[in-house]
Every structure is written in structure tokens, then in C-alpha cells.
């Protein structure tokens, strides 16, 4: 048995898969690739694969991770090739490595997440920047999402941000937002907040959201989750297919 860390992405129409649908797609892909995954015991055995935090439906990502307990150790470059060959279009595997046994779960260690949010708006980058700065200067923000409300500490939740022109009346927000238990906030909720707070720019329409990086800390230098996990070399005994 070996623990395999896979860095993958979700894009195109497949960004509309729910987390459960994504899980099923991966389980079947492992089967098609002929990569045997350990199963849990019990009446309803499930493949032992753990995932990072669920990606909201409609969000694409180039920084998703999963850990699968595989039965035999296929060489890591080989595994990328085998799985890539059978994945549905829209899912792609970027990197893979074997990691040591005892490691905290992906979901439990992510502290902040970087997003690219593409929006359509009549406002210019400069105008929006000053509005976001105003928002950032407030000590606390009341965030409303799915009928729930919570207060977050502004500086703690919006760690960094930037706005770039993308042409064609489009702007891209680059956001570094807190994740996990404390002060977490979702990117679309933040854009909504800008809309609500400044009715004069109410025409900010979200075109697309992409998750671009996940980190295990919130301070500089940021440590990418993939680098955080220590790899083990499976060395000469790994199986080439």
C-alpha cells in the first residue's frame, strides 16, 4: 500500500460537477486506469480516497488535490500518464507523488486560497481598487451567504488582492482569501459585498471564478500544499506499465 498525492484541475463544463459527482468520476477513472485503490471494510466498501475542500459548483480550479491509498506502487510519472488517458475531458492531472504514511488531511491544513475572479463591469480598475480599499479599511465585514450571516475580521479574511484589466470590458480580481475555520470567505460573496456596499457600481457581473492556489499558512512566504507533503521515493521497485 502507498499513499498517492495527486494534483489535478477541473475546467470547462466539468466545473458544474458537484463534489459527489467528481468523486464518482475519479473512482471510475482509477478503475479504468487499472490503478487499484484500497477499499474500506464493511457492508458497503468504499475506495480510500480523500479530497480537499469541495469546490463550489461552477468554480474551475487548477489546484485540487486528492490522496488515494493505492495497492501497488506504479511509478509516479507513469501514474499521471495512465490516469490522464482515461479522465473525462475537463479533468486533468498535473503532478503526482507518493507521500509518507502519517500526514494530516488536505482539508484540515489549508489556511488560505488564491482565486482569480473574472468580472464584467463598466467601472475601471482604478475606481474599483479604491472601493475595495475602502471596504478593506472597515474593521469587520458582515458576510451573507445562503441565508446565513457572519462577521469576519476584514484584514484576516482578505489577505491580499489586486485588480487587472483583462480587455473587452473585463477585469480580473486576484484574491487571496482565508480558508478553514477562522474568517473564511468565498470570492463570489466578496464581490456581492462590493456590489451591495457601492450601488453605483452595481453592474459587476461575475463571469468566471477559478481557484489557483492553496496554501498551508497565511504569511509570507506562502507554502503551497503540494510542497508541504513530504514525498517518499518508491525507487527502483516501482512498476512501469
Amino acid at each position: 500500500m502507498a499513499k498517492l498525492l495527486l494534483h489535478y484541475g477541473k475546467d470547462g463544463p466539468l466545473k458544474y460537477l458537484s463534489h459527489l459527482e467528481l468523486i464518482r468520476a475519479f473512482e471510475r477513472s482509477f478503475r479504468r486506469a487499472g490503478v487499484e485503490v484500497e477499499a474500506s471494510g464493511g457492508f458497503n466498501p468504499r475506495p480510500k480516497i480523500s479530497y480537499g475542500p469541495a469546490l463550489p459548483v461552477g468554480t474551475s480550479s487548477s489546484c485540487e488535490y486528492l490522496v488515494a491509498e493505492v495497492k501497488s506502487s506504479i511509478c509516479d510519472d507513469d501514474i499521471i500518464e495512465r490516469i490522464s488517458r482515461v479522465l473525462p475531458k475537463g479533468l486533468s492531472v498535473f503532478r503526482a507523488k507518493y507521500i509518507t504514511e502519517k500526514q494530516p488531511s488536505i482539508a484540515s491544513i489549508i489556511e488560505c486560497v488564491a482565486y482569480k475572479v473574472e468580472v464584467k463591469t463598466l467601472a475601471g480598475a482604478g475606481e474599483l481598487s479604491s472601493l475595495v480599499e475602502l471596504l478593506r479599511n472597515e474593521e469587520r465585514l458582515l458576510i451573507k451567504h445562503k441565508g446565513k450571516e457572519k462577521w469576519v475580521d476584514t484584514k484576516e479574511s482578505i489577505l491580499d488582492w489586486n485588480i487587472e484589466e483583462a480587455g473587452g470590458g473585463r477585469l480580473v480580481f486576484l484574491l487571496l482569501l482565508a480558508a478553514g475555520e477562522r474568517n473564511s470567505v468565498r470570492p463570489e460573496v466578496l464581490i456581492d459585498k462590493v456590489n451591495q456596499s457601492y450601488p453605483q457600481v452595481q453592474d459587476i457581473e461575475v463571469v468566471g471564478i477559478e481557484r489557483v492556489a492553496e496554501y498551508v499558512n497565511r504569511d509570507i512566504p506562502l507554502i503551497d500544499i503540494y510542497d508541504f507533503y513530504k514525498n517518499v521515493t518508491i525507487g527502483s521497485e516501482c512498476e512501469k506499465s
Partner: protein
Amino acid sequence: MSLWSQVERVLRSVEKPTRYINSELNSVHKTVTGEGVRVALAYPDVYEVGLPNMGLQILYELLNGREDVVAERAYAPWLDMEAVMREQSIPLFTLESHSALADFDILGFTLQHELIYTNVLNMLDLAGLPVLAAERGDEHPLVIAGGPGTVNPEPMTPFIDVFVVGEAEELIFELVDAVKELKRARAGREEVLRRLARIPGVYVPTLYSVEYNDDGTVAKIEAAPDAPSSITRRIVKDFSAIPVPRRPIVPFMDAVHDRCSVEVMRGCARGCRFCQAGMIYRPVRERTQEQVVSGISQILETTGYEEISLSSLSSADYSAVEGTLKELSERYDGQNVSLSLPSLRVDAFSIGLVKEIAKVKKTGLTFAPEAGTQRMRDFINKNVTEEDVLNTVTLAFQEGWQRIKLYFMIGLPTETEEDLQGIVDLSQKVVEAGLATLSGAAKSRLTVTVSASAFAPKPHTPFQWVAQDTLEEFEAKQGYLAARLKGRHLSLKWHNAKSSVVEGAIARGDRRVGDAIYRAWLLGCKFDAWTKEFNYESWRQAFAEAGLEGSFYAGRRRDFDEVLPWSHIETGVDAEFLKEEFHRATRGEKTGDCRFDGCGDCGVCPNLDAENIIF
């Protein structure tokens, strides 16, 4: 032109957006040149119901196997999606290229059962096409329909240009070739229809005229001079010559069936007299064990499925069922692949089979005695005795099953209170058998679920002449059962009798019933098979507006000499045989299974130049 950007813009506002995306594994994304034929295969229900449909998947793979053809799929958008599509003027699209249905050469619908007919109309309308065939012109796709509903196509004739009767594996290529040629020749609609009518198994309703008697029954059905006087169902004579489809589409979302399903045979010769499928898919044609097993292994490779199902009308009757299951369970031992057998006979053999495949998981078992008394079971030719039922369930309890589902029908012809009481008694005896066999905690978990569905007589069966129960009769019978089927271990389930009555009227309807379907759709009926969406009042109003009585079609005892609205559709089973079967039923005589008990002279083999093929 792809409508994807428009579709995507509304996806955030609808439930289950996965219904409307593409890129499922094994879906085919390709284009053809101007000469090629573009086919949209449409299933008139929501994605997760339509996707597993075997017929559609077979055609999809066959058609896409040709270089000059592209086949894409479309399903009925759910109500929330329909609302935004109408609001934003997004026409109905296929999944693969998100092209408007109107851009295809052929638009094919599966008529799986009567309660999806209004969805066909709604999909045509959403596609921006005239719903009535008479209003469509040369610029519109050819609208075709296949599936079991085509054995009585009449109610759908106002909406469909061409019906394809029977198994389409061979016919579809003849049709596509003809369409391709006609397209190149820029043939007009009328010419296209006349040409297609020459293909055996194709029914072009505009080439047939129907006259009625004063009492509303059909007087005669007349074919145009160059159209055949009757349409004979097409079949694949040697089913084992047809390769198992290798690349079924794997849905992302949870579909009603989401597994590797391989047809082990076509047809069933048990001869249950109420069962349309048992009559219209004859004769029995098996696939070999080798073919089934290798087909499954290929499908597992292309899909990654974790469950295998041997499908057919009665898989326990497949002659190689034991060997196949054994081979499969040995082959996939330890790989977390589960096996299932969807249709079980009421006998020890079936228990032996499921015991083999359900080594750990002992979920429920379903048996279908269909009727409560021996008299009624003999009447419907269901060759099962009370003893069979009790022995079988006892064996199941001994093997550790605790949940049993019993399937019955109410409203079978000649039914009396005694037959209803028989359902109650038999169900209670099953509970008693459970209590006597199970022990300890298992005893307290015992559940017997009784499902009582309201019988709707179907065309091309020995009961095609009988009157269906009225709604009041059905409801009284349901009340009778509800009052008596009580107790800690019993639960009763039934289907809405109102929808059975509507189903019954459409099933044996004539052309005029098309008007009722049209009005029902105008009144907002759609997704009629969904209990919550079904609107009985609208259907009543629709029949009334069309000047028709549903009971004329469903609740009337028909004369044996009456010209039935579907009499020009030949399934191969002779009307004489059906009549004789009805008489045998009345005399309490059973009819054997022609695979073992000798030919029963149903007519199928000589009429279709075929035979039972058992390996």
C-alpha cells in the same frame, strides 16, 4: 452553432446543472461535413431518467460508428431550466455540441411509455419547431419515433413524421442512407416520406387514412397506393450476431440506473397474458455466455463501472445465467464489483443465483406473484403457485434476507373481492413465513412491502379487448387493500390510479386521441410520469375539449370483430392467437413456454421468419 455560452450563463440558477453539460465519458464529440447526416436522439424525460435507456445508447453507438453520421443526445430540461430557457429564448439543444435541435436532419424520440408523450410535444416546442407534423416544412428536421409505444403509434401520429416499428439495429442504417441520399437530391418533405415508407418497419402515418363508424370505433384503415397495407415489426433475427455495445455513456450525475448493463437476450416466451413486452419482443433470442462475459469485460474497461447487471425481460430464464454469473463472480472476485439480476423468478433456482452474487450485501428481494389467487394467476398465465411463493420466500429468509417486496396488480379482468382478499392473505402468509423463519433481531427487521399497481390493458396482448377498471373501481380496491394490509411488518405501496387510467386511454387510443394529448400539453401537462407533476384534472379537460371520452378507449369491452386502431401494425403475433389466449384464460387453461413446451402457434416465428435461439 454552439449555444453553450448562453446555456452556461443560466446554469448557476438551476438545480443539478450536470444535466445540461457534456463530456461524459464515452460521449462522442465530432462533426460531419455538409453531405453527412446529423441525428439528434431525444429522450422525452429528464437526463437522469433518459440516460440509461438502452435503446438510445445502442443507436448512439451504432450511428456514431459511421463516419458520415453524427448522433447527439437531448433530454427534457427540468421545469426550472425550461423556465429560464423560455425566458431567455434559448432553444432546446443537444448535449454534445449544444446545437439547437432544429439544426439536425433527423430528430428521433423514444416512446418508452404513454406518460412521456406530452414531453415529446414540449420538446418540439422548446426546440422552436411546430409541434404538429402538418405544420412542419422542408426546412425542419424529420421527426421520427421508436420504442415500444410504436406498436400503437396512432395517438402520436399528429406529431411524428415517421415511426420505426421494432428493433432498430438494422433498420436505422437503411433509414439514414435513404435520408442522406434524399438530402443530396434536395428532395421535398413529401417525397422523403414516400421514399421512407418503402423501408420495411417504417410507418408514415400521413399515407394512411382512418375512417370511423357512427359509434366511434374504427371502420377501416386505408393505405395510400404506394404504401404497404400493414407494417411489420422489424427484429434482429440472430441477436448473438449483434456485438455488445462497448462504450456506454457514463453519466456524471446519479442516474436511475448507473451500471454496466448487458442484454443477455431479447424476448420472453413465458406468455403472461397481461404483459405487452412478453408479446411484442418475441421470439426469444439469446447471446452466448462468451459474448456476454467478454462484452462486460470491455464495458468495464471503457467505463470503470462497479456494478454489473444482466438485463432482459426475465434474466433468470437466460439459459446460461448460472454459468455466466459464476464466471463473472470468479473473474471479479476481490475487485469490489457487484452483480445484480434485475428480474427474479419465484423459485429456489433464483434464490440460488442471488445467493451466489450477493455474498455480503443482502438488500431486499422482489418477487412478482402478480395476482392473489390461483384462479387469477391461471387466468393471466402466471405459472406460480402459493406454495412456490412461500417456499421461495422461506428460503430467502433462511439465507438471511429480511426485506421482501411483492408485486401485484389490481384491476385484472374478472377480478373479484376474493382475488383482492387473496393478495391480503398471501402477503400475510409471507409475513408469517418470515416470523417463523427469522430469529432474534432479524425478526424485528422483517419488512414485506406490497406493491399494487393499477392494471392498464395494452395493445397486442390477449387482454387488448377488455375494459380497464374505472378510477372509482381502482380507488375502492385500493381502499379495500389499505384497510386490510396492516401490521407491523407490512407496508403497502401503489401507483397513482389516476395516471393508470390516462395511460390506459392513450395506450389503446386512436388518432383522435392525439388531439387530447395536444390539448393536455396546451393545458400545461408534462412529466406526467412524475407523480407530483401529473395533473388529472387537466387531462380530463383535455379529453373533453377534444370531444372524447377517455373511458371509450380504456373502459369499454371491445368486440372481437372491432377494427382495432393498431390493427395495421403487425408485431408478428397473430390476432387469432391473442383471441385464443383470451378464451383459454376464461377457461382457466394455462399456456406453456414455447422454449420448452412446444410451439404455441403465436405466429411470430413464421411471420417474421425467425425462431427462438437458445444456446
